């Protein structure tokens, strides 16, 4: 049997050679979020600047540390000094940063986010002491943003694959027992106990048995799985390997969302490197255990994140959900026993094996053990990915980690898990985050997306957005979902147009319950959540649309009117040419032709005299 210790020693040597501080090292965060923020351009600028100055430095990439609001992030580690993170570093700041830092003159404190070492000054705190980090318990994220995700040595040097070696020294039943003792529940949305699933799959008769990793993270606003896959892919692969060993499987699939090309690229690199190291393939660590993984790419279908639809998709069928009996642990992919887990669930497995199930279960809540990753987005000061123990309040995540509302605004609520997750009003932010509490509140932990919305948001518009998303993504097989989501949108459309009829809110509520109860799969069962949440928590705002034909947030365009106040208008001539539909006319006095107006708000933005007035309500309609 091949010795894992020698694999580890080799990796540590490679890691140390790179980080021994013999020359400056520059590390640039390079995940989808960073690239969208301009990290590729920053990387080019860094390389150019180093060449121009003739500086010999090592340039590495890393994944996302979670501080998406500070992207692009550039870390600098000078010989004999701690690594310091700087951000956001756009191309124009590169010469300044490299000039100051590499000359050893100073630390460019005004650009610093934090240091990996002890606090250096008021403007360079310890990175994990800044508010976004302080309230986190970073386990799954421990290596994200620290290591190069395309270099397996980094992962191994920091403890990676030791759990696999440990698991393979245990009988498979004992591995399953540890996972059961950890009481970990699936992170994909259904919250099914993972250990139980593994046990059932091991007990099921049939060959081959399949391990499937669900990386079809489709909930808008959720990007935790992507962060893990792009920043620490081996963590997920190691979890899959341990599952395969425990269940007795020799072949697996990872189904990665089509919209995640970088995650697929990084995972495929991870597969190749693991195979080269003898950690994957025919004889894992020189033993009889073999495991092969194939990557399958989705192609833009939300419903494929549902487990049975995902299997249909792998089999080359339309990605439609199928009947859940027999269960997939008995007859799943190609009617063979299949154990499917989510990316985040697999990422937890090495922790469970390394520290033991009981130790794992001591974090979090009784029925929701461990930590949970959240992607924070929307109307919040700091966006990004954070990890907290179950039982942490929404308040902590949104106010302390996320930094609360944007300047001058007030947070109204949050959509956990995107359009499927319902809404939780700000008055309930003291709720602890765990599977059961959020379910009771008509919401869910879901995939971990937290979309915060503030007082500029119209709840009817948000419900309509959610319902329309579900309608578009419905596979059209079962009628409650197909017709139901269409009707949901129709009700919400009517409300946002001021065409709601008496009794519509009751009808909408009833329809929501029917769609929820009678739809075949999770898509339909969660499709009405935002609408039902709006009725439950924001009833008066919904009623304003129905009774007063008024949108209090002035978002629903048919209920909003743009008007030019002649007393304020100076005829400066900015608005008319800016209007994309030529709706602004007049010479001595400007006015807006309501039929041509698409409510884009451009005139409102370009007007310097505050002469464009936005109004909503019956009274306004009478005026025009």
């Amino acid at each position: 049997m091949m010795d894992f210790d020698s694999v580890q020693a080799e990796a540590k040597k490679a890691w140390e050679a790179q980080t021994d501080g013999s020359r400056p090292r520059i590390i640039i965060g390079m995940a989808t979020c960073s690239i969208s923020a301009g990290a590729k351009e920053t990387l080019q600028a860094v390389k150019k600047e180093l060449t121009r100055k003739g500086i010999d430095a090592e340039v590495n990439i890393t994944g996302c540390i979670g501080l998406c609001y500070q992207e692009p992030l550039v870390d600098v580690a000078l010989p004999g000094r701690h690594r310091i993170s700087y951000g956001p570093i756009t191309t124009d700041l590169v010469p300044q940063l490299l000039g100051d830092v590499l000359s050893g003159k100073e630390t460019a404190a005004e650009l610093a986010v934090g240091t990996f070492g002890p606090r250096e000054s008021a403007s360079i705190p310890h990175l994990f002491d800044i508010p976004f980090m302080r309230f986190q318990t970073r386990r799954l994220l421990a290596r994200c943003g620290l290591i190069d995700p395309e270099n397996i040595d980094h992962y191994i040097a920091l403890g990676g694959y030791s759990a696999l070696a440990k698991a393979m020294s245990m009988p498979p039943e004992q591995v399953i027992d540890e996972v059961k003792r950890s009481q970990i529940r699936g992170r994909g949305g259904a919250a099914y106990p993972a250990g139980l699933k593994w046990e059932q799959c091991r007990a099921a008769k049939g060959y081959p048995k399949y391990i499937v990793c669900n990386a079809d993270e489709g909930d808008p606003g959720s990007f935790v799985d992507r962060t893990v896959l792009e920043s620490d892919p081996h963590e997920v692969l190691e979890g899959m390997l341990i599952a395969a060993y425990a269940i007795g499987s020799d072949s697996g699939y990872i189904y990665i969302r089509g919209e995640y090309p970088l995650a697929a690229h990084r995972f495929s690199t991870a597969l190749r490197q693991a195979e080269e190291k003898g950690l994957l393939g025919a004889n894992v660590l020189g033993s009889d255990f073999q495991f092969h993984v194939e990557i399958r790419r989705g192609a833009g279908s939300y419903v494929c994140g549902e487990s049975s639809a995902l299997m249909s998709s792998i089999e080359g069928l339309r990605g439609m959900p199928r009947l859940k009996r027999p269960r997939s642990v008995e007859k799943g992919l190609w009617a063979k026993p299949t154990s499917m887990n989510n990316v985040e669930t697999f990422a937890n497995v090495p922790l469970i094996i390394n520290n033991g199930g009981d130790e794992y279960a001591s974090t979090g809540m009784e029925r929701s053990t461990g930590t949970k990753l959240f992607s924070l987005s929307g109307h919040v000061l700091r966006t990004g990915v954070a990890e907290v123990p179950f039982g942490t309040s929404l308040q902590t995540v949104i106010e302390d980690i996320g930094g609360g509302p944007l300047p001058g605004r007030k947070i109204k609520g949050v959509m956990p898990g995107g359009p499927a997750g319902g809404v939780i009003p700000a008055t309930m932010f003291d709720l602890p985050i765990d599977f059961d509490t959020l379910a009771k509140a008509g919401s869910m932990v879901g995939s971990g997306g937290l979309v915060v919305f503030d007082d500029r948001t119209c709840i009817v518009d948000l419900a309509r957005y959610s319902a329309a998303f579900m309608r578009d993504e419905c596979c059209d097989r079962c009628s409650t979902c197909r017709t139901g989501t269409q009707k949901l949108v129709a009700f919400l459309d009517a409300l946002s147009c001021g065409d709601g009829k008496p009794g519509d809110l009751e009808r909408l509520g009833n329809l929501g319950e029917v769609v929820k109860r009678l739809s075949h799969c999770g898509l339909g069962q969660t499709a009405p959540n935002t609408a039902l949440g709006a009725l439950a928590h924001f009833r008066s705002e919904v009623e304003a649309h129905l009774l007063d034909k008024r949108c209090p947030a002035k978002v629903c365009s048919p209920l909003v009117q743009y008007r030019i106040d002649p007393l304020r208008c100076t005829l400066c001539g900015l608005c008319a040419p800016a209007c994309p539909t030529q709706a602004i006319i007049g010479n001595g006095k400007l006015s807006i032709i309501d039929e041509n107006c698409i409510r884009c708000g451009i005139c409102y933005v370009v007007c310097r005299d505050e002469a464009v007035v936005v109004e909503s309500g019956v009274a306004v309609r009478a005026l025009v």
Partner: protein
Amino acid sequence: MSYWLTKYPPERGSLLPILHEIQTQEGYVSKEAVAAVARYLGLSASQVYGVLTFYSQLRTAPLGKKVIRICEGPACHLEGMDKIHHVLEAILGIDVGETTSDGSFSLEFVPCNGTCNHAPFLLVNDDAYRRVQASQIKGILEKYE
């Protein structure tokens, strides 16, 4: 046309990877390609077409020269993406999912990028536009004309 034949075994499970490959190589999946894939996998053309049209990322027609990608994530929606996409539709005279008749612009929705603090977020080919306002759209489009 047969570059994918040797790469994937002739079984139903190869269908989606083959369609991906064809689109990567040719930009879309043509009628001829559908027929060839059906022959190779022993399926009917309608079975292949059924799968092809189920997935929103797979295309049956080529894209325009410039592709404008609108983030449909909730953070962008909350920041007024609706207005931006209505302005784009009004100026280009097409709906999202369509290509202008001269083949110069296509409008597409893309899912949340996670760049939510840059919302609303727009891509024109590979150029990123962050915190876009509806009033900037005209100027942005002019750069590509």
